[in-house]
């Protein structure tokens, strides 16, 4: 018996260890602390629409020493997996770069440790997805000590303004979603689909607004503004007061429309029960969600719909993945799509923006990351809205290995080595030009 156990367990350990060391496009590779992808070859795996490997002619831009770029992740999700595939298999061979992916660095200590490790490993730049503005300047200075460039996923807020205006030569600025535009997607959808003559009540999931999450603040603000615009109502408190409350709060207004702001992290213990309890009051028929929680609430909402025999419309922020696909493909008790509208982004485009900043600086063109007044800029992209399962299926099929939205044409257009004199403003315009319509047109051509 004991021998059998030993054999079984040894087998399990061997399988586990070999799986850990496997270098496929699987996300498992993200787990290793300092996984490095060497790319001296110009063979691009899965670069055709059929996913076949092809040899490519390196552009003149890549005639330089291999640049090594550290990718600092704060959480490992489907998005980080896409990012690994894009950087490692698509970008690295063509632009003569190596990428070193971190494990999930959830706090400042682990972020600093990774940066030190990256410096020891010879990294030239860090693309940082740790978005705590108060730490930006500290991290820029740390990278400066090690002679590395620093580019962050984020924008300018009072807490990191000094870093953007401090004239740090190693700071390439930030990249992020155009948050007001993301919020406006919600506002536009609500204004376009709701009739002021119909009476509705709203449960707004404000998520991390009270923690200062910019994206969720913009989305929630726009939702509140949209409701105010549709019904011509005025809130007793300011929108900012309502959405930054850390406790659930009723948004009292002069038109007596029921609006309830429900904050909290969707992963927190008791959060879902609280949301379900609020829905069970039977007052609310619109659930508007600022955090990415569509995958967490579908079942609870569906049970409340069945219990109260009440149709609840869900509109929320989302990303490409099984959760969103399932939500769009699931019908509720009333035969409606579970989620009416969600937002998505093309990860390859966001990654290309970050890469262009690093590459432009590494190839000696720091002016490409500066605004007209000489400060470090923030490159932005616009999210897209999705309203049907068909549209989601079409869009999610666009940004996959072999068919990246930000293909070589797009990336090349962001690099100064290919177009001397290219400015940050022009790069921004080109990024904004990559939208649903333009991608659809390119795909149909």
């Amino acid at each position: 018996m004991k021998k059998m156990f030993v054999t079984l367990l040894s087998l399990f350990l061997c399988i586990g260890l070999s799986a850990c060391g496997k270098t496929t496009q699987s996300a498992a590779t993200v787990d290793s602390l300092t996984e490095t992808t060497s790319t001296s070859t110009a063979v691009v795996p899965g670069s055709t629409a059929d996913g076949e490997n092809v040899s490519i002619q390196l552009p003149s831009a890549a005639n330089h020493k291999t640049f090594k770029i550290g990718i600092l992740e704060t959480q490992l999700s489907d998005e980080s997996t896409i990012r690994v595939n894009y950087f490692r298999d698509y970008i690295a061979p063509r632009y003569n770069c190596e990428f070193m992916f971190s494990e999930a660095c959830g706090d400042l200590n682990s972020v600093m440790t990774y940066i030190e490790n990256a410096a020891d490993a010879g990294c030239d730049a860090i693309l940082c997805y740790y978005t705590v503005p108060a730490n930006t300047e500290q991290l820029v200075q740390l990278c400066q000590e090690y002679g590395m460039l620093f580019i962050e996923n984020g924008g300018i807020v009072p807490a990191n303004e000094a870093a953007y205006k401090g004239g740090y030569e190693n700071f390439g600025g930030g990249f992020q979603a155009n948050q007001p535009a993301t919020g406006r997607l919600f506002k536009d959808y609500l204004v376009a689909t709701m009739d002021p003559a119909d009476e509705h009540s709203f449960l707004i999931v404000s998520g991390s607004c009270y923690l200062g999450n910019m994206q969720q603040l913009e989305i929630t603000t726009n939702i509140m503004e949209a409701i105010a615009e549709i019904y011509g109502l005025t809130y007793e408190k300011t929108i900012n007061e309502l959405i930054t409350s850390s406790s659930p709060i009723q948004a009292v207004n002069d038109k007596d429309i029921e609006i309830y702001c429900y904050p909290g992290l969707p992963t927190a213990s008791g959060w879902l029960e609280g949301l379900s309890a609020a829905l069970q009051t039977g007052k609310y028929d619109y659930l508007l969600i600022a955090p990415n929680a569509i995958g967490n609430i579908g079942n609870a909402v569906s049970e409340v719909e069945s219990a109260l025999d009440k149709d609840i419309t869900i509109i929320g922020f989302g990303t490409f993945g099984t959760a969103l696909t399932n939500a769009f493909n699931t019908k509720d008790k009333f035969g409606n799509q579970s989620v009416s509208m969600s937002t998505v982004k093309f990860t390859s485009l966001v990654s290309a923006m970050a890469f262009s900043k690093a590459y432009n600086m590494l190839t000696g063109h720091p002016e490409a990351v500066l605004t007209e007044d000489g400060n470090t800029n923030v490159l932005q992209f616009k999210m897209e809205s999705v309203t049907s399962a068909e549209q989601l299926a079409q869009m999610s099929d666009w940004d996959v290995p072999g068919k990246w939205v930000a293909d070589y044409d797009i990336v090349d257009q962001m690099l100064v080595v290919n177009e001397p004199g290219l400015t940050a403003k022009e790069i921004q315009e080109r990024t904004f030009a990559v939208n649903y319509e333009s991608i659809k047109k390119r795909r149909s051509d």
Partner: protein
Amino acid sequence: MADIRKKRHEIILRILKTIAVPVVAWLIMEIITRTVVGVSVIRNSADVKTFFRNMVSTIAFALAISTNLNCGRMDLSLGAQMYAGTILGGNIALVLGWGGAGMLMLAMLIGGFCGLLTGFLFVNLRILPMVLGLGMTLIFECVCFMVNDQQGVIIYGSSGFGILSNEAFIITVSFALILVSTYLFQLSRFGYRYRAIQGNQKLASDAGINIFSNCVWCYLIGGMLVACAGVFITAYAGSLVPVLGMSSNTYVFKNMFPMIMGTWIGGFCYNRQIGIFMAAVSVNMLTLGLSKLGLSISVQNMIIYILFLLFMVYNSNKDKLSYWKARAARISLAERTLQALAEKGC
């Protein structure tokens, strides 16, 4: 005859004590929620489903913790075993199209295997259980990340998983858990040995009990139970996303309250499993009631953990209360005796 009556009276008293805690918890929360927000703690079928689903996961998790903890082993990898069992079992069930019942079965099998692995390493390596638990937590958490592109398991929108939200199925699983665990730990040969080890490991070993195989079985049972809990946790949220950095331990600590309270209630009825069932009902009644009040999550958790702390203070000092009570009785007797003697002029 008087003895029989006394015994019957004692049994009734024990039953009443056993059910008193959940009844009191429900009454308090019912009064508070009706007074403050004008609604009952449980008001419709959605509440019933939420209550039962959370209850079964609490029962399973608390039983799993107590399985090892009662023998002096604190297994900190239980949360990670839950993730591993649920994510691996759930994804296999999704691929095979086995639905909710299949997911439960597969998750328990894989959870049991994770427990078996941990137990086997423990008895062979003799590392401190907590230290081994931490190491195994990190391994299992990473394994969970390796599968399904870090998506964990997403059952929302998949067909065949509705059974996990069916009240009859949930109640059946709850009673099955209680009955099987009662048989295992109270009536089976394994249970007798388990309790002998629980009493004194050295004496049990000297008496010829294989304490190592018993320990491995405990880990295996613990793994199966946490995986069962994980399936119902996933059924409510619709998905279970893997975590890193020992975050899975949150579930272990969250279920310590019902486990400890369950052991205390179990003392009334001489059955730990029923005690844990009653504690699970009480704690979930409290949680559901607090969520009805519309309090922020931090306030809800603060209330629950303050109650946990107060309970721990009481539980740790209940002997002192008995001592003070007995002391007061002795003093009173002495005073009465002195008074009687004084009255007699002695």
